[in-house]
Protein backbone atom coordinates (compact mmCIF):
# COMPACT_ATOMS: atom_id res chain seq x y z
CA UNK A 1 0.00 0.00 0.00
CA UNK A 2 2.59 2.49 1.14
CA UNK A 3 5.03 1.32 -1.50
CA UNK A 4 2.33 1.74 -4.13
CA UNK A 5 1.83 5.30 -3.02
CA UNK A 6 5.53 5.94 -3.24
CA UNK A 7 5.77 4.71 -6.81
CA UNK A 8 2.75 6.61 -7.98
CA UNK A 9 4.11 9.82 -6.51
CA UNK A 10 7.48 9.13 -8.04
CA UNK A 11 6.04 8.68 -11.52
CA UNK A 12 3.85 11.70 -11.06
CA UNK A 13 6.86 13.73 -9.97
CA UNK A 14 8.99 12.63 -12.92
CA UNK A 15 6.14 13.37 -15.31
CA UNK A 16 5.53 16.76 -13.77
CA UNK A 17 9.23 17.66 -13.93
CA UNK A 18 9.29 16.67 -17.59
CA UNK A 19 6.63 19.26 -18.30
CA UNK A 20 7.43 21.88 -15.72
CA UNK A 21 11.23 22.12 -15.91
CA UNK A 22 11.42 23.53 -19.45
CA UNK A 23 8.63 25.90 -18.58
CA UNK A 24 10.36 27.14 -15.46
CA UNK A 25 13.66 27.62 -17.23
CA UNK A 26 11.91 29.42 -20.09
CA UNK A 27 10.14 31.68 -17.64
CA UNK A 28 13.37 32.26 -15.74
CA UNK A 29 15.25 33.04 -18.94
CA UNK A 30 12.53 35.44 -20.10
CA UNK A 31 13.11 37.53 -16.98
CA UNK A 32 16.88 37.92 -17.52
CA UNK A 33 16.86 40.53 -20.28
CA UNK A 34 18.63 43.04 -18.11
CA UNK A 35 21.94 41.73 -16.95
CA UNK A 36 22.21 40.80 -13.28
CA UNK A 37 18.55 41.29 -12.31
CA UNK A 38 15.16 39.68 -12.88
CA UNK A 39 12.95 42.15 -14.71
CA UNK A 40 9.84 41.83 -16.89
CA UNK A 41 11.51 43.95 -19.58
CA UNK A 42 11.16 41.27 -22.25
CA UNK A 43 7.41 41.20 -21.64
CA UNK A 44 7.09 44.97 -22.01
CA UNK A 45 9.08 44.86 -25.23
CA UNK A 46 6.82 42.15 -26.61
CA UNK A 47 3.58 43.77 -25.53
CA UNK A 48 4.65 47.13 -26.88
CA UNK A 49 5.56 45.71 -30.28
CA UNK A 50 2.85 46.83 -32.76
CA UNK A 51 3.30 43.60 -34.71
CA UNK A 52 2.44 41.67 -31.57
CA UNK A 53 -0.71 43.69 -31.17
CA UNK A 54 -1.67 43.32 -34.82
CA UNK A 55 -1.02 39.60 -35.11
CA UNK A 56 -2.59 38.85 -31.77
CA UNK A 57 -5.74 40.79 -32.66
CA UNK A 58 -5.87 39.07 -36.03
CA UNK A 59 -5.61 35.63 -34.45
CA UNK A 60 -8.21 36.40 -31.81
CA UNK A 61 -10.64 37.53 -34.53
CA UNK A 62 -9.86 34.42 -36.56
CA UNK A 63 -10.44 32.28 -33.48
CA UNK A 64 -13.83 33.88 -32.86
CA UNK A 65 -14.85 33.43 -36.49
CA UNK A 66 -13.65 29.82 -36.39
CA UNK A 67 -15.65 29.17 -33.24
CA UNK A 68 -18.81 30.74 -34.67
CA UNK A 69 -18.56 28.82 -37.93
CA UNK A 70 -17.57 25.61 -36.14
CA UNK A 71 -20.57 25.79 -33.82
CA UNK A 72 -22.94 26.47 -36.72
CA UNK A 73 -21.49 23.49 -38.56
CA UNK A 74 -21.02 20.99 -35.75
CA UNK A 75 -24.06 21.46 -33.48
CA UNK A 76 -26.75 20.92 -36.14
CA UNK A 77 -24.73 18.10 -37.75
CA UNK A 78 -24.07 16.20 -34.53
CA UNK A 79 -27.70 16.75 -33.50
CA UNK A 80 -29.11 15.56 -36.79
CA UNK A 81 -26.91 12.48 -36.89
CA UNK A 82 -27.87 11.56 -33.33
CA UNK A 83 -31.54 12.07 -34.08
CA UNK A 84 -32.01 10.70 -37.57
CA UNK A 85 -28.90 8.83 -38.68
CA UNK A 86 -27.56 7.09 -35.58
CA UNK A 87 -26.01 4.39 -37.75
CA UNK A 88 -23.80 7.01 -39.37
CA UNK A 89 -22.30 8.18 -36.10
CA UNK A 90 -19.17 5.99 -36.37
CA UNK A 91 -18.61 7.31 -39.90
CA UNK A 92 -18.93 10.90 -38.75
CA UNK A 93 -16.68 10.19 -35.81
CA UNK A 94 -14.05 8.81 -38.18
CA UNK A 95 -14.31 11.83 -40.49
CA UNK A 96 -13.89 14.23 -37.59
CA UNK A 97 -10.76 12.33 -36.52
CA UNK A 98 -9.10 12.73 -39.92
CA UNK A 99 -7.59 16.15 -39.11
CA UNK A 100 -5.52 14.45 -36.40
CA UNK A 101 -4.07 12.07 -39.00
CA UNK A 102 -3.70 14.33 -42.02
CA UNK A 103 -1.01 16.95 -41.42
CA UNK A 104 -2.15 20.57 -41.81
CA UNK A 105 0.46 21.08 -44.48
CA UNK A 106 -1.34 18.57 -46.71
CA UNK A 107 -4.64 20.37 -46.16
CA UNK A 108 -3.17 23.76 -46.92
CA UNK A 109 -1.42 22.59 -50.09
CA UNK A 110 -4.70 21.09 -51.16
CA UNK A 111 -6.37 24.42 -50.55
CA UNK A 112 -3.74 26.32 -52.49
CA UNK A 113 -4.08 23.96 -55.46
CA UNK A 114 -7.89 24.09 -55.41
CA UNK A 115 -8.46 27.75 -54.74
CA UNK A 116 -5.48 29.47 -56.42
CA UNK A 117 -5.91 32.55 -58.58
CA UNK A 118 -6.36 30.54 -61.77
CA UNK A 119 -8.97 28.17 -60.31
CA UNK A 120 -12.75 28.38 -60.60
CA UNK A 121 -12.97 29.76 -57.06
CA UNK A 122 -9.91 32.00 -56.63
CA UNK A 123 -10.13 32.47 -52.87
CA UNK A 124 -6.40 33.09 -52.49
CA UNK A 125 -6.68 36.06 -54.86
CA UNK A 126 -7.83 38.44 -52.15
CA UNK A 127 -6.96 38.97 -48.50
CA UNK A 128 -10.55 38.41 -47.44
CA UNK A 129 -10.81 35.21 -49.47
CA UNK A 130 -7.58 33.92 -47.95
CA UNK A 131 -8.84 34.77 -44.48
CA UNK A 132 -11.94 32.74 -45.25
CA UNK A 133 -9.82 29.85 -46.44
CA UNK A 134 -7.67 30.03 -43.32
CA UNK A 135 -10.79 30.01 -41.16
CA UNK A 136 -12.07 26.89 -42.95
CA UNK A 137 -8.70 25.30 -42.28
CA UNK A 138 -8.94 26.19 -38.59
CA UNK A 139 -12.45 24.76 -38.44
CA UNK A 140 -11.03 21.51 -39.79
CA UNK A 141 -8.19 21.50 -37.26
CA UNK A 142 -10.57 22.04 -34.36
CA UNK A 143 -13.17 19.58 -35.67
CA UNK A 144 -12.01 16.55 -33.64
CA UNK A 145 -12.30 18.52 -30.39
CA UNK A 146 -15.41 20.50 -31.22
CA UNK A 147 -17.34 17.48 -32.49
CA UNK A 148 -16.40 15.35 -29.51
CA UNK A 149 -17.31 18.06 -27.02
CA UNK A 150 -20.71 18.66 -28.63
CA UNK A 151 -21.46 14.97 -29.06
CA UNK A 152 -20.69 14.32 -25.40
CA UNK A 153 -22.97 17.21 -24.48
CA UNK A 154 -25.76 15.74 -26.61
CA UNK A 155 -25.32 12.35 -24.98
CA UNK A 156 -26.19 13.89 -21.62
CA UNK A 157 -29.68 14.85 -22.76
CA UNK A 158 -32.48 12.77 -24.26
CA UNK A 159 -32.25 14.37 -27.69
CA UNK A 160 -35.05 12.38 -29.35
CA UNK A 161 -37.68 12.86 -26.65
CA UNK A 162 -36.86 16.52 -26.05
CA UNK A 163 -37.16 17.10 -29.79
CA UNK A 164 -40.53 15.39 -29.92
CA UNK A 165 -41.76 17.26 -26.86
CA UNK A 166 -40.81 20.54 -28.51
CA UNK A 167 -42.36 19.50 -31.82
CA UNK A 168 -45.65 18.58 -30.19
CA UNK A 169 -45.65 22.05 -28.63
CA UNK A 170 -45.47 23.55 -32.11
CA UNK A 171 -41.74 24.23 -32.42
CA UNK A 172 -39.95 24.01 -35.77
CA UNK A 173 -36.32 23.00 -36.34
CA UNK A 174 -34.80 26.44 -35.80
CA UNK A 175 -36.66 26.90 -32.52
CA UNK A 176 -35.71 23.42 -31.36
CA UNK A 177 -32.04 24.00 -32.15
CA UNK A 178 -31.79 27.45 -30.63
CA UNK A 179 -34.07 27.11 -27.61
CA UNK A 180 -33.79 23.46 -26.66
CA UNK A 181 -30.65 21.83 -28.04
CA UNK A 182 -28.08 24.65 -28.00
CA UNK A 183 -28.81 25.87 -24.44
CA UNK A 184 -28.48 22.31 -23.17
CA UNK A 185 -25.12 21.74 -24.85
CA UNK A 186 -23.87 25.29 -24.21
CA UNK A 187 -21.25 24.16 -21.72
CA UNK A 188 -19.97 21.50 -24.10
CA UNK A 189 -19.89 24.06 -26.90
CA UNK A 190 -17.94 26.44 -24.66
CA UNK A 191 -15.31 23.88 -23.82
CA UNK A 192 -14.99 23.08 -27.53
CA UNK A 193 -14.70 26.82 -28.15
CA UNK A 194 -11.84 27.26 -25.69
CA UNK A 195 -9.87 24.41 -27.23
CA UNK A 196 -10.49 25.94 -30.65
CA UNK A 197 -9.26 29.27 -29.33
CA UNK A 198 -6.07 27.73 -28.02
CA UNK A 199 -5.45 25.91 -31.31
CA UNK A 200 -6.02 28.96 -33.49
CA UNK A 201 -3.86 31.26 -31.37
CA UNK A 202 -0.85 28.96 -31.64
CA UNK A 203 -1.32 27.64 -35.20
CA UNK A 204 1.66 28.19 -37.51
CA UNK A 205 1.66 26.05 -40.65
CA UNK A 206 -1.56 27.13 -42.29
CA UNK A 207 -1.17 30.80 -41.50
CA UNK A 208 2.43 30.84 -42.72
CA UNK A 209 1.72 29.05 -45.99
CA UNK A 210 -1.31 31.19 -46.70
CA UNK A 211 0.82 34.18 -45.74
CA UNK A 212 -1.59 35.72 -43.26
CA UNK A 213 -0.40 38.06 -40.45
CA UNK A 214 -1.27 35.82 -37.54
CA UNK A 215 0.24 35.16 -34.14
CA UNK A 216 1.92 31.83 -34.91
CA UNK A 217 4.20 33.11 -37.69
CA UNK A 218 4.96 36.18 -35.56
CA UNK A 219 6.18 33.96 -32.74
CA UNK A 220 8.35 32.09 -35.21
CA UNK A 221 9.75 35.31 -36.65
CA UNK A 222 10.56 36.67 -33.24
CA UNK A 223 12.12 33.38 -32.21
CA UNK A 224 14.47 33.48 -35.15
CA UNK A 225 15.68 37.02 -34.47
CA UNK A 226 15.63 37.70 -30.76
CA UNK A 227 16.86 36.06 -27.57
CA UNK A 228 14.69 36.98 -24.57
CA UNK A 229 11.45 38.05 -26.21
CA UNK A 230 10.60 34.61 -27.67
CA UNK A 231 10.83 33.16 -24.18
CA UNK A 232 8.44 35.81 -22.89
CA UNK A 233 6.14 35.14 -25.82
CA UNK A 234 6.18 31.41 -25.11
CA UNK A 235 5.17 32.08 -21.52
CA UNK A 236 2.37 34.35 -22.70
CA UNK A 237 1.15 31.72 -25.19
CA UNK A 238 1.21 29.11 -22.43
CA UNK A 239 -0.73 31.37 -20.14
CA UNK A 240 -3.40 31.83 -22.81
CA UNK A 241 -3.71 28.11 -23.41
CA UNK A 242 -3.84 27.33 -19.71
CA UNK A 243 -6.32 30.10 -19.18
CA UNK A 244 -8.55 28.42 -21.76
CA UNK A 245 -8.19 25.08 -20.00
CA UNK A 246 -9.04 26.66 -16.66
CA UNK A 247 -12.12 28.24 -18.23
CA UNK A 248 -13.21 24.84 -19.56
CA UNK A 249 -12.93 23.43 -16.04
CA UNK A 250 -14.83 26.39 -14.70
CA UNK A 251 -17.75 26.35 -17.14
CA UNK A 252 -18.21 22.59 -16.93
CA UNK A 253 -19.38 23.18 -13.37
CA UNK A 254 -22.46 24.74 -14.93
CA UNK A 255 -23.35 21.81 -17.19
CA UNK A 256 -27.12 21.29 -17.27
CA UNK A 257 -28.14 18.68 -14.79
CA UNK A 258 -30.25 15.81 -15.95
CA UNK A 259 -33.33 15.65 -13.70
CA UNK A 260 -32.62 13.40 -10.77
CA UNK A 261 -28.89 13.25 -11.47
CA UNK A 262 -26.65 13.83 -8.46
CA UNK A 263 -23.62 16.05 -8.75
Amino acid at each position, binding site marked *: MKINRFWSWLFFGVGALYFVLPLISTAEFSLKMRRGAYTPDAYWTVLADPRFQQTFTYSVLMALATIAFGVLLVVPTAYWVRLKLPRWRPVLEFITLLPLIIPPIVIVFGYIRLYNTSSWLPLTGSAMGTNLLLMFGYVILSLPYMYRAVDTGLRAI*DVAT*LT*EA*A*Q*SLGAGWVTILTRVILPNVAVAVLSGAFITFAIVIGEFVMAALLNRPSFGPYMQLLGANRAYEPAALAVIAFAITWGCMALIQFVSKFAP*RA*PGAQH
Partner: protein
Amino acid sequence: MPEPFLSIQHVRKSFGATTVVQDFNLDVEAGEFISFLGPSGCGKTTVLRMVAGFEEPSGGRIVIGGKDVTGLKPNQRNIGMVFQAYALFPNLTVAQNIGFGLKVAGVARAEIDSRVAEMLDIIKLPASEFGARYPYQLSGGQQQRIALARALAPRPKVLLLDEPLSALDAKVRVSLREEIRSIQKKLGITTIFVTHDQEEALSISDRIVVMYGGKAEQVGTAFEIYNRPATRFVAGFVGTLNVLEGRLGNAGKVQVGSGEIVLREEPADVRSGDIVSLALRPEAIALGRRAGDDAVLAGEIADVHFLGSVIRVRVRAGDSIVSLDTFNNPATPPPRIGDKVEISFSSGDVMLLN
Protein backbone atom coordinates in the same frame (compact mmCIF):
# COMPACT_ATOMS: atom_id res chain seq x y z
CA MET B 1 -72.75 7.45 -31.93
CA PRO B 2 -72.28 11.14 -32.72
CA GLU B 3 -69.70 12.33 -35.24
CA PRO B 4 -66.32 11.18 -33.88
CA PHE B 5 -63.82 13.89 -32.98
CA LEU B 6 -60.75 11.75 -33.57
CA SER B 7 -60.97 9.05 -36.18
CA ILE B 8 -58.23 6.54 -36.94
CA GLN B 9 -59.15 4.75 -40.15
CA HIS B 10 -57.53 1.58 -41.51
CA VAL B 11 -54.14 2.70 -40.26
CA ARG B 12 -51.19 0.43 -40.93
CA LYS B 13 -47.52 0.71 -40.09
CA SER B 14 -44.58 -1.34 -41.26
CA PHE B 15 -40.93 -0.93 -40.40
CA GLY B 16 -39.17 -2.51 -43.36
CA ALA B 17 -40.66 -5.95 -43.78
CA THR B 18 -42.26 -6.21 -40.34
CA THR B 19 -45.81 -5.03 -39.96
CA VAL B 20 -46.24 -3.50 -36.54
CA VAL B 21 -49.78 -2.14 -36.82
CA GLN B 22 -52.40 -3.66 -39.09
CA ASP B 23 -55.75 -2.20 -40.06
CA PHE B 24 -56.28 -0.20 -36.89
CA ASN B 25 -59.66 1.52 -36.61
CA LEU B 26 -60.92 3.70 -33.80
CA ASP B 27 -63.46 6.48 -33.44
CA VAL B 28 -63.12 8.68 -30.39
CA GLU B 29 -65.80 11.12 -29.28
CA ALA B 30 -64.92 14.63 -28.18
CA GLY B 31 -63.97 14.63 -24.50
CA GLU B 32 -63.61 10.89 -24.32
CA PHE B 33 -60.83 9.19 -22.33
CA ILE B 34 -59.52 6.16 -24.23
CA SER B 35 -56.86 3.76 -22.98
CA PHE B 36 -54.68 1.56 -25.16
CA LEU B 37 -53.99 -1.58 -23.19
CA GLY B 38 -51.78 -4.41 -24.34
CA PRO B 39 -48.60 -6.34 -23.75
CA SER B 40 -45.17 -4.94 -24.56
CA GLY B 41 -44.48 -4.61 -28.27
CA CYS B 42 -48.11 -4.80 -29.40
CA GLY B 43 -47.95 -1.42 -31.15
CA LYS B 44 -49.56 0.95 -28.63
CA THR B 45 -46.80 3.52 -28.82
CA THR B 46 -46.64 3.23 -32.60
CA VAL B 47 -50.34 4.07 -33.01
CA LEU B 48 -50.01 6.95 -30.58
CA ARG B 49 -46.96 8.28 -32.42
CA MET B 50 -48.86 8.15 -35.71
CA VAL B 51 -51.64 10.24 -34.15
CA ALA B 52 -48.99 12.69 -32.91
CA GLY B 53 -47.31 12.75 -36.32
CA PHE B 54 -43.93 11.37 -35.20
CA GLU B 55 -44.46 8.28 -37.30
CA GLU B 56 -45.93 8.25 -40.79
CA PRO B 57 -48.62 5.59 -41.37
CA SER B 58 -47.91 3.13 -44.17
CA GLY B 59 -51.60 3.31 -45.00
CA GLY B 60 -54.91 4.67 -43.80
CA ARG B 61 -55.80 8.12 -42.47
CA ILE B 62 -56.21 10.05 -39.26
CA VAL B 63 -58.90 12.70 -38.91
CA ILE B 64 -59.08 15.20 -36.04
CA GLY B 65 -62.03 17.56 -35.72
CA GLY B 66 -63.17 16.83 -39.26
CA LYS B 67 -59.74 17.60 -40.73
CA ASP B 68 -57.45 15.00 -42.28
CA VAL B 69 -54.12 15.39 -40.45
CA THR B 70 -52.37 12.34 -41.91
CA GLY B 71 -49.89 14.44 -43.88
CA LEU B 72 -49.33 17.14 -41.27
CA LYS B 73 -46.08 17.54 -39.35
CA PRO B 74 -46.17 17.04 -35.56
CA ASN B 75 -45.77 20.76 -34.92
CA GLN B 76 -48.81 21.55 -37.08
CA ARG B 77 -51.24 19.19 -35.35
CA ASN B 78 -51.90 20.99 -32.09
CA ILE B 79 -51.63 17.85 -30.03
CA GLY B 80 -50.44 17.66 -26.44
CA MET B 81 -48.05 14.87 -25.61
CA VAL B 82 -46.85 13.48 -22.29
CA PHE B 83 -43.92 11.06 -22.28
CA GLN B 84 -42.91 8.32 -19.90
CA ALA B 85 -39.57 10.03 -19.30
CA TYR B 86 -41.22 13.45 -18.56
CA ALA B 87 -38.98 15.16 -21.16
CA LEU B 88 -39.02 18.54 -19.46
CA PHE B 89 -36.51 20.99 -20.95
CA PRO B 90 -33.63 20.92 -18.42
CA ASN B 91 -32.50 24.46 -19.25
CA LEU B 92 -35.89 26.04 -18.56
CA THR B 93 -37.71 26.72 -15.31
CA VAL B 94 -41.06 25.18 -14.51
CA ALA B 95 -42.87 28.32 -15.64
CA GLN B 96 -40.82 28.53 -18.86
CA ASN B 97 -41.48 24.85 -19.56
CA ILE B 98 -45.23 25.31 -19.21
CA GLY B 99 -45.14 28.48 -21.28
CA PHE B 100 -42.97 26.98 -24.05
CA GLY B 101 -45.81 26.10 -26.42
CA LEU B 102 -47.44 29.49 -25.98
CA LYS B 103 -44.17 31.31 -26.56
CA VAL B 104 -43.56 29.34 -29.73
CA ALA B 105 -47.05 30.31 -30.86
CA GLY B 106 -46.18 33.98 -30.32
CA VAL B 107 -48.63 34.58 -27.48
CA ALA B 108 -48.11 37.84 -25.58
CA ARG B 109 -46.01 37.74 -22.42
CA ALA B 110 -48.79 38.74 -20.03
CA GLU B 111 -51.12 36.14 -21.44
CA ILE B 112 -48.45 33.44 -21.12
CA ASP B 113 -47.89 34.37 -17.48
CA SER B 114 -51.56 34.14 -16.61
CA ARG B 115 -52.00 30.85 -18.47
CA VAL B 116 -48.94 29.39 -16.70
CA ALA B 117 -50.38 30.43 -13.34
CA GLU B 118 -53.69 28.87 -14.30
CA MET B 119 -52.02 25.59 -15.28
CA LEU B 120 -49.95 25.46 -12.08
CA ASP B 121 -53.19 25.96 -10.21
CA ILE B 122 -54.85 23.07 -12.08
CA ILE B 123 -52.01 20.68 -11.27
CA LYS B 124 -52.00 21.95 -7.67
CA LEU B 125 -48.39 23.13 -7.53
CA PRO B 126 -48.20 26.63 -6.03
CA ALA B 127 -46.62 29.02 -8.53
CA SER B 128 -44.73 30.90 -5.81
CA GLU B 129 -42.92 27.76 -4.75
CA PHE B 130 -42.47 25.89 -8.04
CA GLY B 131 -42.56 28.45 -10.84
CA ALA B 132 -38.86 29.33 -10.69
CA ARG B 133 -37.54 25.83 -10.05
CA TYR B 134 -35.63 23.77 -12.58
CA PRO B 135 -36.69 20.24 -13.51
CA TYR B 136 -33.82 18.65 -11.57
CA GLN B 137 -35.21 20.22 -8.41
CA LEU B 138 -38.49 18.28 -8.69
CA SER B 139 -39.63 14.77 -7.81
CA GLY B 140 -40.72 12.43 -10.58
CA GLY B 141 -44.39 12.92 -9.81
CA GLN B 142 -44.00 16.70 -9.82
CA GLN B 143 -42.08 16.57 -13.10
CA GLN B 144 -44.82 14.53 -14.72
CA ARG B 145 -47.47 16.97 -13.52
CA ILE B 146 -45.46 19.84 -15.02
CA ALA B 147 -45.18 17.86 -18.24
CA LEU B 148 -48.97 17.49 -18.23
CA ALA B 149 -49.42 21.21 -17.63
CA ARG B 150 -46.94 21.97 -20.42
CA ALA B 151 -48.85 19.74 -22.84
CA LEU B 152 -52.21 21.29 -21.90
CA ALA B 153 -51.16 24.95 -21.78
CA PRO B 154 -51.54 25.64 -25.54
CA ARG B 155 -55.09 24.15 -25.41
CA PRO B 156 -54.41 21.19 -27.71
CA LYS B 157 -57.21 19.39 -29.52
CA VAL B 158 -56.10 16.00 -28.31
CA LEU B 159 -53.98 14.87 -25.36
CA LEU B 160 -51.76 11.83 -25.79
CA LEU B 161 -50.03 10.13 -22.88
CA ASP B 162 -47.55 7.28 -23.39
CA GLU B 163 -47.22 5.32 -20.17
CA PRO B 164 -46.92 8.54 -18.18
CA LEU B 165 -46.97 6.77 -14.82
CA SER B 166 -44.60 3.87 -15.47
CA ALA B 167 -41.55 5.57 -14.00
CA LEU B 168 -43.30 6.49 -10.75
CA ASP B 169 -43.69 4.51 -7.56
CA ALA B 170 -46.96 2.74 -6.81
CA LYS B 171 -48.55 5.31 -4.49
CA VAL B 172 -47.83 8.29 -6.73
CA ARG B 173 -49.00 6.26 -9.71
CA VAL B 174 -52.46 5.78 -8.24
CA SER B 175 -52.92 9.35 -7.02
CA LEU B 176 -51.60 10.88 -10.24
CA ARG B 177 -53.83 8.75 -12.45
CA GLU B 178 -56.88 9.96 -10.54
CA GLU B 179 -55.59 13.50 -10.93
CA ILE B 180 -55.01 13.11 -14.67
CA ARG B 181 -58.54 11.78 -15.03
CA SER B 182 -60.10 14.60 -13.04
CA ILE B 183 -58.16 17.29 -14.95
CA GLN B 184 -59.16 15.61 -18.22
CA LYS B 185 -62.82 15.67 -17.19
CA LYS B 186 -62.63 19.26 -16.03
CA LEU B 187 -61.08 20.43 -19.31
CA GLY B 188 -63.13 18.03 -21.41
CA ILE B 189 -60.13 17.20 -23.55
CA THR B 190 -60.14 14.18 -25.86
CA THR B 191 -57.46 11.87 -24.50
CA ILE B 192 -55.59 8.70 -25.41
CA PHE B 193 -53.69 7.07 -22.58
CA VAL B 194 -51.27 4.22 -23.28
CA THR B 195 -50.58 1.72 -20.55
CA HIS B 196 -49.76 -1.90 -20.02
CA ASP B 197 -51.23 -1.81 -16.53
CA GLN B 198 -54.76 -3.17 -16.73
CA GLU B 199 -55.84 -1.80 -13.38
CA GLU B 200 -54.87 1.66 -14.61
CA ALA B 201 -56.84 1.22 -17.83
CA LEU B 202 -59.90 -0.32 -16.16
CA SER B 203 -60.12 2.32 -13.45
CA ILE B 204 -59.91 5.59 -15.36
CA SER B 205 -61.05 5.05 -18.96
CA ASP B 206 -64.32 5.73 -20.70
CA ARG B 207 -63.38 3.03 -23.16
CA ILE B 208 -60.44 0.70 -23.52
CA VAL B 209 -58.76 -0.57 -26.67
CA VAL B 210 -57.15 -3.91 -25.96
CA MET B 211 -54.33 -4.40 -28.45
CA TYR B 212 -52.46 -7.50 -29.42
CA GLY B 213 -50.03 -8.09 -32.27
CA GLY B 214 -50.65 -4.69 -33.85
CA LYS B 215 -54.42 -5.09 -33.92
CA ALA B 216 -57.27 -3.80 -31.81
CA GLU B 217 -58.67 -6.99 -30.32
CA GLN B 218 -61.58 -5.31 -28.61
CA VAL B 219 -62.85 -1.80 -27.99
CA GLY B 220 -65.27 -1.29 -25.13
CA THR B 221 -65.95 -0.03 -21.65
CA ALA B 222 -64.11 -1.58 -18.73
CA PHE B 223 -67.29 -3.47 -17.89
CA GLU B 224 -67.61 -4.92 -21.39
CA ILE B 225 -63.94 -5.78 -21.72
CA TYR B 226 -63.87 -7.50 -18.38
CA ASN B 227 -67.18 -9.33 -18.48
CA ARG B 228 -67.60 -10.00 -22.17
CA PRO B 229 -64.13 -10.37 -23.64
CA ALA B 230 -64.41 -10.72 -27.39
CA THR B 231 -61.38 -12.91 -27.91
CA ARG B 232 -59.43 -15.47 -25.99
CA PHE B 233 -56.54 -13.06 -25.75
CA VAL B 234 -58.66 -10.34 -24.15
CA ALA B 235 -60.17 -12.85 -21.74
CA GLY B 236 -56.73 -14.00 -20.65
CA PHE B 237 -55.02 -10.63 -20.61
CA VAL B 238 -57.55 -8.64 -18.62
CA GLY B 239 -58.14 -9.81 -15.08
CA THR B 240 -57.58 -13.26 -13.61
CA LEU B 241 -59.17 -16.08 -15.50
CA ASN B 242 -59.88 -19.66 -14.51
CA VAL B 243 -59.73 -22.11 -17.36
CA LEU B 244 -61.42 -25.48 -17.02
CA GLU B 245 -60.71 -28.18 -19.57
CA GLY B 246 -63.63 -30.50 -20.29
CA ARG B 247 -65.00 -32.93 -22.84
CA LEU B 248 -68.02 -31.79 -24.80
CA GLY B 249 -70.94 -34.22 -24.76
CA ASN B 250 -74.41 -33.94 -26.24
CA ALA B 251 -76.72 -30.95 -25.90
CA GLY B 252 -74.06 -28.58 -24.60
CA LYS B 253 -73.04 -30.78 -21.71
CA VAL B 254 -69.39 -30.58 -20.70
CA GLN B 255 -67.76 -33.19 -18.50
CA VAL B 256 -65.28 -31.49 -16.12
CA GLY B 257 -63.52 -34.00 -13.87
CA SER B 258 -66.33 -35.86 -12.12
CA GLY B 259 -68.83 -33.03 -12.55
CA GLU B 260 -70.92 -31.80 -15.40
CA ILE B 261 -71.75 -28.33 -16.70
CA VAL B 262 -74.59 -27.58 -19.08
CA LEU B 263 -73.75 -24.64 -21.34
CA ARG B 264 -76.46 -22.05 -22.02
CA GLU B 265 -75.70 -22.07 -25.71
CA GLU B 266 -74.42 -24.99 -27.65
CA PRO B 267 -70.99 -24.12 -29.08
CA ALA B 268 -71.05 -23.75 -32.84
CA ASP B 269 -67.80 -24.99 -34.30
CA VAL B 270 -66.88 -27.83 -31.96
CA ARG B 271 -68.19 -31.39 -32.09
CA SER B 272 -69.17 -33.61 -29.23
CA GLY B 273 -66.16 -35.54 -27.94
CA ASP B 274 -63.83 -32.54 -28.42
CA ILE B 275 -61.90 -31.02 -25.54
CA VAL B 276 -63.10 -27.47 -24.84
CA SER B 277 -61.80 -24.71 -22.57
CA LEU B 278 -64.25 -22.95 -20.30
CA ALA B 279 -63.30 -19.68 -18.63
CA LEU B 280 -64.63 -18.16 -15.43
CA ARG B 281 -63.73 -15.02 -13.46
CA PRO B 282 -62.81 -15.73 -9.80
CA GLU B 283 -65.69 -13.58 -8.56
CA ALA B 284 -68.22 -15.65 -10.54
CA ILE B 285 -67.44 -18.72 -8.44
CA ALA B 286 -68.73 -19.35 -4.92
CA LEU B 287 -67.40 -21.70 -2.30
CA GLY B 288 -70.18 -24.13 -1.42
CA ARG B 289 -73.57 -24.30 -3.10
CA ARG B 290 -74.83 -20.78 -3.76
CA ALA B 291 -78.55 -20.33 -4.22
CA GLY B 292 -79.42 -19.92 -7.89
CA ASP B 293 -76.21 -21.47 -9.25
CA ASP B 294 -76.86 -24.27 -11.69
CA ALA B 295 -73.34 -25.67 -11.94
CA VAL B 296 -71.62 -27.47 -9.08
CA LEU B 297 -68.20 -29.12 -9.03
CA ALA B 298 -66.52 -31.08 -6.26
CA GLY B 299 -62.94 -30.26 -5.31
CA GLU B 300 -60.30 -29.89 -2.68
CA ILE B 301 -58.70 -26.73 -1.25
CA ALA B 302 -55.21 -26.39 -2.73
CA ASP B 303 -54.16 -22.99 -1.46
CA VAL B 304 -55.43 -20.12 0.68
CA HIS B 305 -54.19 -16.51 0.42
CA PHE B 306 -55.42 -14.09 3.03
CA LEU B 307 -55.41 -10.65 1.34
CA GLY B 308 -57.25 -8.63 3.99
CA SER B 309 -60.84 -7.94 3.10
CA VAL B 310 -60.71 -10.69 0.48
CA ILE B 311 -59.49 -14.26 0.74
CA ARG B 312 -58.32 -15.83 -2.49
CA VAL B 313 -58.84 -19.59 -2.44
CA ARG B 314 -57.51 -22.04 -4.99
CA VAL B 315 -59.51 -25.23 -5.45
CA ARG B 316 -58.47 -28.32 -7.36
CA ALA B 317 -61.42 -29.57 -9.39
CA GLY B 318 -60.59 -32.52 -11.61
CA ASP B 319 -57.46 -31.62 -13.55
CA SER B 320 -57.91 -27.89 -13.17
CA ILE B 321 -57.05 -25.40 -10.44
CA VAL B 322 -59.71 -22.75 -9.91
CA SER B 323 -59.16 -19.42 -8.11
CA LEU B 324 -62.07 -17.79 -6.35
CA ASP B 325 -62.50 -14.92 -3.94
CA THR B 326 -64.50 -14.91 -0.72
CA PHE B 327 -64.97 -11.99 1.60
CA ASN B 328 -63.26 -12.15 4.93
CA ASN B 329 -65.74 -12.80 7.74
CA PRO B 330 -64.35 -12.47 11.27
CA ALA B 331 -66.90 -15.00 12.54
CA THR B 332 -65.83 -17.86 10.27
CA PRO B 333 -62.23 -18.98 9.91
CA PRO B 334 -60.94 -19.39 6.34
CA PRO B 335 -60.92 -22.87 4.76
CA ARG B 336 -57.87 -25.05 5.28
CA ILE B 337 -55.72 -26.74 2.68
CA GLY B 338 -56.96 -30.25 1.94
CA ASP B 339 -60.61 -29.58 2.91
CA LYS B 340 -63.13 -31.25 0.59
CA VAL B 341 -65.41 -28.58 -0.80
CA GLU B 342 -67.92 -27.85 -3.51
CA ILE B 343 -67.82 -24.84 -5.78
CA SER B 344 -70.76 -23.43 -7.66
CA PHE B 345 -71.41 -20.90 -10.38
CA SER B 346 -73.96 -19.90 -12.92
CA SER B 347 -73.51 -21.50 -16.33
CA GLY B 348 -74.43 -18.11 -17.78
CA ASP B 349 -71.08 -16.74 -16.55
CA VAL B 350 -69.08 -19.38 -18.37
CA MET B 351 -67.13 -18.14 -21.36
CA LEU B 352 -66.22 -20.67 -23.99
CA LEU B 353 -62.68 -20.06 -25.27
CA ASN B 354 -61.60 -21.16 -28.70
